[in-house]
């Protein structure tokens, strides 16, 4: 066996692919679990796509900070946060694929077009490499996703429960990191306070969508979490952070949805196209490419 980790990966995967369209068949055993009684497999697959796409697209946005963060430690922090979310996304997309939503996790990640993605707008909006905006988004996203996963650990679907049980620990750490930065910047200098408040104002219009119950979620009681039920818990944490950070809760009208339809229905902002263009271009230009 070679000492080179990449060689050792390639030698056991006969097709030699491992960056995308891969021979990775390593996803967790649980994804083949039977669909719980009385649950429509297509609905369950859609719900897995929602939570998986939130994580995948947010991870892609966080990855844009690699080589761009204000300091090396922060680059490592945002990349590690992205890695956790990517790991969650892989299981959820693999489960969705197993339930018939696509060929496999890679096909779902790299071959779907914008209207087929089910993530909320908050995950996809750009931050123009403004660090305060990245923190504001991560604070909102991680606080909300943690509240969702805390409730999802008792899901009747064993895959969702397993992803949630593991993800809760990760999201708590992400939230902690974002909250500490929000306080440091908000309660910092005049400049950092102004920029942190502006960042919060910029992402706030995408909060309303987080608590809107989609048709699919409504059809999955006991399996999916009704996001509307997380609003109180999310607000309590945000109030705690905003108070410590001397930031003002923005009051801005919601955005990112059209006529009540949003990411959960495949209606996205312009930003998702840019995310996908970067994320999918290599896999689309060289389908099945090997290294």
């Amino acid at each position, binding site marked *: *066996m070679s000492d080179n*980790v990449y060689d*050792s*990966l390639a*030698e*056991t995967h006969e097709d030699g692919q*491992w960056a995308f369209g891969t021979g*990775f068949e*390593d*996803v*967790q*055993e*649980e994804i083949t679990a039977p669909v719980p009684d009385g649950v429509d497999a297509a609905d369950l697959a859609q719900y897995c796509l929602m939570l998986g796409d939130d994580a995948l697209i947010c991870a892609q946005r966080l990855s844009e900070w690699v080589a761009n963060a204000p300091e090396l*430690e922060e680059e*490592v*922090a945002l990349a*590690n*946060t992205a*890695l*956790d*979310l*990517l*790991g*969650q996304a*892989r*299981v959820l997309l693999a489960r969705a694929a197993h339930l018939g939503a696509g060929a496999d996790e890679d096909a779902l990640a790299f071959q779907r077009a914008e209207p087929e993605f089910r993530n909320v707008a908050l995950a996809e909006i750009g931050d123009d490499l403004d660090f305060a905006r990245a923190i504001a988004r991560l604070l909102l996203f991680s606080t909300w996703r*943690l*509240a969702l996963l*805390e409730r999802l650990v008792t899901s009747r679907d*064993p895959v969702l*429960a*397993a*992803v949630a*049980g*593991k*993800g*809760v*620990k*990760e999201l*708590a*750490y992400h*939230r*902690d*990191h974002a*909250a*500490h930065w929000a*306080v440091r910047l908000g309660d910092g200098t005049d400049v950092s306070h102004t920029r942190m408040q502006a960042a919060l104002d910029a992402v706030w219009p995408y909060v309303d969508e987080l608590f809107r119950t989609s048709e699919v979620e409504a059809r999955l009681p006991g399996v999916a979490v009704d996001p509307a039920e997380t609003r109180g*818990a999310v607000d309590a*944490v945000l109030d*705690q*952070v905003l108070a*410590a950070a001397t930031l003002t809760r923005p009051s801005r009208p919601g955005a990112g949805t059209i006529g009540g339809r949003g990411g959960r229905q495949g209606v996205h902002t312009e930003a998702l196209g840019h995310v996908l263009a970067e994320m999918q271009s290599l896999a689309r230009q060289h389908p099945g490419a090997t290294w």
Partner: protein
Amino acid sequence: MLTLDDLGVLRDVRASADAVTVTITPTYSGCPALEAIRDDLRAALTDAGYRSVEVRTVLSPPWSTDWISDAGRAKLAEHGIAPPGRIGPRAAGPIPLALGRPPARVACPRCGSRDTEELSRFGPTACTALHRCTACREPFEHVKEI
């Protein structure tokens, strides 16, 4: 040598005369070492004479640093990595957000001093944070408690 069993990553082994099934669990959802662990296991078990080797990966129950054995903790420290503290079962209810609580002072794995500080909450791998000892001046990694 620090083993997968020491780390609590190895969950189960079932072997017959020429077949073996090994079950492992990732530390973090996106742990990139999992592929290497899986391939190393396959190679080692094949070398050991098993004709059929199956490596299963399970997510549940979620890995906890409390699963790292005492021997594993000692070996981590020997290699200059501060082992995690014990956290025990999590209290019921929402996970509280602790603002303003200073990071714990982890004992330096080299000199034992508690005069240490956190440099970065995220280290070179998903499971570690970066600290520095102000007594012996050496930086070190700390396995984060989860």
